[in-house]
């Protein structure tokens, strides 16, 4: 898995969403998610899916083709989950498919869980496409998280492409010594163990070297640290969160009242 193969990554664009303060975008994802856990009707989830799609395509300016290609797996799993609920949830029988029964409760609950899974993931994708992780880490430290701990998250993400390259290299090294991809399950498990151990050992070796290197540069010596790029909070960023809080409140009120 090379770095370039991942379509899910930050893409620099000039959009309203890109200019928002990173923590407010994170808060927006949580506002969207919380609402989806409170809905009792599938129509609310459908409305939210439409609105989040609009945010992705219009506000964040992500091409619809990219949105759909990244979401294929998620929508597929959401549909499977919905179908499972059709059969598993209690209620009055509506249809029979062999020994299985589709219930009215399942037909009502299934789409709720389809939308819950799909919309939460889509909102997460919008955050990833529009937020530089470095900016998110800086905003986390501005929110009061000690920089040594925020750095751990940043470091994990910094190591990510290195780990992916390491996995590729170890796999290739094993492949040229035999036809690993065509072997049986037990052999594959043994290969997995070897990959894991090699990747872990190489990773930990790098961890030791990194720890020494950053301590030599004075990491952790002072309670505050400086950053190359500053991230400024603008109160206008809160508008997105406020709009969605109102939208969620409106949908939940409408569900209960109608």
């Amino acid at each position, binding site marked *: 898995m090379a770095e370039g193969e991942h379509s899910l990554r930050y893409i620099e664009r000039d959009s309203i969403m890109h200019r928002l303060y990173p923590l407010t975008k994170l808060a927006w994802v949580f506002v969207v*998610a919380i609402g989806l856990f409170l809905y009792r009707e599938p129509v609310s989830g459908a409305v939210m899916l439409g609105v989040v799609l609009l945010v992705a395509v219009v506000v964040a300016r992500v091409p619809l083709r990219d949105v759909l290609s990244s979401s294929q797996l998620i929508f597929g799993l959401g549909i499977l989950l919905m179908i499972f609920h059709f059969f598993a949830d209690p209620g009055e029988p509506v249809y029979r498919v062999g020994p299985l029964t589709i219930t009215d409760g399942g037909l009502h609950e299934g789409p709720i869980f389809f939308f819950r899974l799909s919309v939460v993931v889509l909102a997460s994708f919008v955050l990833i496409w529009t937020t530089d992780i470095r900016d998110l880490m800086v905003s986390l430290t501005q929110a009061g998280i000690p920089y040594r701990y925020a750095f751990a998250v940043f470091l994990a993400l910094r190591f990510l492409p290195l780990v992916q390259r390491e996995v590729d290299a170890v796999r290739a090294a094993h492949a040229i010594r035999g036809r690993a991809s065509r072997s049986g399950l037990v052999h594959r498990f043994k290969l997995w163990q070897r990959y894991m151990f090699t990747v872990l050992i190489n990773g930990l070796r790098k961890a030791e070297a990194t720890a020494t290197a950053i301590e030599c540069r004075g990491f952790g010596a002072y309670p505050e640290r400086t950053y190359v790029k500053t991230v400024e909070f603008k109160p206008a960023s809160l508008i997105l969160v406020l709009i969605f809080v109102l939208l969620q409140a409106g949908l939940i009120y409408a569900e209960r009242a109608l």
Partner: protein
Amino acid sequence: MALYAVVNVVIVVVLGLIAKAIGKPEEGAGGWNFQYSTRDIVIVAVIAAIAGVVNTGTGNLWYLANSSLGPLGGALLQGAFMWAYVLAMWLVRKPGAALAVGVIETAVEILLGNAAGVGTLGWGISQGIAVEVVMALVNYGKFNLWTAIMAGAAASQFGTLWTAILFGWDPAYARDVWIAVPINLISGAILSGVIGFLLAKAIARTGLVRAAA
């Protein structure tokens, strides 16, 4: 759901008490030491990055099993995700190491396109807390195979609480959620507890990480 939550808490505490009852604490090992060195932080970050890559692939299989076959399908692979929590705890030996790996690893998974989006953080937190509870009950002083097995099993089962909420498996009518409990425990004990412990021991033998040696 409330009953299922209570049962899960009881299971985690009982597993912690079993770990406490088996074996002796190691001299000078662990304890309630919250002083993380830079090395500890970097080790946690690296393990989280590696686990994030591995678990994203395993996660897709799990989602397929869980979405199409329900709680019983998910239970078979439920324990395959927490080996990194056990490994980090065994290498760093400080309170919070498993929870930190859980949160960071799931954050990495979100960025790699995990099929639950930010929802995956719920598993990182719940499973990390379960390992921490088991370790807290042994005063972060026992790092033997049995403690690893109990920690893996506890994390595996406690994670299903979030699964039930996210996927809508209501334990009030979904019998499979209860039938899956022993499968979750065995799956977590082996795929997370035993594998995490064996990886930690193998790494300790290399002399690369001093705390686990």
